């Protein structure tokens, strides 16, 4: 709190990471495509003149174009897809007192952070949770569950919203939303491909006898590439998910610190987090794909309770106890600084 978070460095890092994510995503698909082309080419090189030869790498071109289009689509529709997947509805004109309070609090925190007011969304779910999404501060959204409104006092709600606005301000939302959209796309695709491959194995079994005779003259390099290539198809969804884990944990601490900076009240966020943690039912409407966007793990995984290696690897969120402890330390320091002055 005493040393402000370097927001510009954080924004720049997020821009850079998003760019790398796009590049890596497209390169991965290029490898899947051109790698397959190369293997096929090696396999059909010695084929008789009238048989099929895989001379033109069309798989590579198709898959690379496909990946680029998918990335562009994820980029354009990411925030809407995330909001749609959790069944959020926009609070355009607040109807109840709770909604008025929510919109006011979002307004206040946008002012504190010096960003335009994000659009406000509500999720009909009794479990307290919240997330932010969007591509930049001008096109950002904050969504909270009904449960959060019911559970939190005004100060605590303010702290939670400040945390989300922190994610918006340092552009975490861009990277995280894009990642959510990609995770969703890859998961869908690997499901579809899994079905296709199972069908393909049966199909391939028919002509198995012939191809076995040829494989003997293939060099070991082709086999290694083939193994790697098949492995890539299998691990693609897992890699996407691991990326989602890796990017989100350090950001939570940072957003907590920014919330403390905006509200000048770290203890209210600590109180809110404790309340959210104790309501330990999973947030049913928030699915795996957007879990890393939320303030608290919506899947209610036990790893967020523990510290240690396992939690480090598998949790999308840092242990709640650690976050609360850090906030309380900030609150204690702020108090100690005030006392001699008063």
């Amino acid at each position, binding site marked *: 709190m005493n040393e402000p978070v370097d927001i510009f460095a954080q924004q720049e890092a997020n821009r850079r990471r998003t760019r790398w994510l796009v590049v890596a995503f497209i390169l991965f698909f290029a490898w899947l495509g051109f790698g397959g082309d190369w293997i096929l080419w090696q396999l059909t090189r010695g084929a008789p003149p009238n048989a099929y030869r895989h001379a033109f790498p069309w798989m590579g071109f198709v898959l690379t174009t496909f990946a680029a289009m998918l990335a562009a689509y994820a980029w354009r529709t990411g925030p809407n897809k995330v909001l749609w997947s959790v069944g959020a509805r926009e609070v355009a004109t607040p109807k109840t007192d709770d909604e008025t309070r929510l919109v*006011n609090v979002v*307004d*206040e*925190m946008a*002012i504190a952070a*010096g960003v335009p007011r994000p659009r406000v969304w509500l999720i009909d779910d009794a479990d307290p949770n919240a997330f932010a999404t969007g591509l930049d501060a001008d096109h950002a959204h904050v969504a909270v569950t009904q449960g959060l409104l019911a559970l939190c006092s*005004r100060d605590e709600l303010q702290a939670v919203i400040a945390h989300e606005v922190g994610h918006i301000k340092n552009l975490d939302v861009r990277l995280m939303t894009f990642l959510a959209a990609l995770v969703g796309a890859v998961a869908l695709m690997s499901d579809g491909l899994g079905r296709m491959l199972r069908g393909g194995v049966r199909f391939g079994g028919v002509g198995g006898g012939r191809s076995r005779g040829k494989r003997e003259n293939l060099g070991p390099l082709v086999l290694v590439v083939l193994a790697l290539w098949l492995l890539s198809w299998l691990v693609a969804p897992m890699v996407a998910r691991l990326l989602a884990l890796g990017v989100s944990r350090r950001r939570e601490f940072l957003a907590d610190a920014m919330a403390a900076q905006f509200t000048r009240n770290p203890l209210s966020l600590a109180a809110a987090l404790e309340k959210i943690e104790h309501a330990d039912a999973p947030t049913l409407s928030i699915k795996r794909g957007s879990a890393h966007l939320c303030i608290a793990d919506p899947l209610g995984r036990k790893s967020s309770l523990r510290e240690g290696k396992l939690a480090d690897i598998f949790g999308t969120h840092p242990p709640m106890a650690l976050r609360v402890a850090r906030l309380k330390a900030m609150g204690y320091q702020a108090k100690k600084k005030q006392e001699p002055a008063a």
Partner: protein
Amino acid sequence: MGTIILLIVVALVLFWLVSAYNGLVSLKNQVMNAWKQIDVQIKRRHDLIPNLVNTVKGAMNFERETLEAVVAARNQAIKVQQTPGAHVGETAAAEAQLTGALGRLLAVVEAYPDLKATGNVAQLQEELTSTENKIAFARQLYNDTATQYNTKQQQFPTNLLAGMASASPAELWEITNEAERAVPNVDLSFGK
């Protein structure tokens, strides 16, 4: 060889000059923008008050003084806001007066449960709490940005450029009134 090194040094210095100058200008604009935010919120509060006064007027004939203090403080604050070139300090003083008067009014409203139970008053209270918060947060942002700007101007070597970027220290919005410091606590407890 020597000339190459010299050229590199000159290029580096030029690069630093440009980025430091732009940094100062950008901070100055941020300060101005933050001040505009305060202005917007102040105006919002001024617009809100007649509504509040009308709602509670009928029910609290006997608290006339408190109401009149609010109206007077509002008029004074509007006058200051509309004066071109008013200092941050003047605005701060007028708004502090208004905040104090509003705080007393809200405390009085709290003492009349019947009045508080009316839906209209509860909504107005939320509006007022929120407006007070917005002003406080806009002020916080302004002060933070202005402090950053002022520090940049005084630090070596950026201070050498301050004149060129026509940078001058921005006046902070100080909270002078002790009574005003206490008010937000009272306000915040209403929303619960």
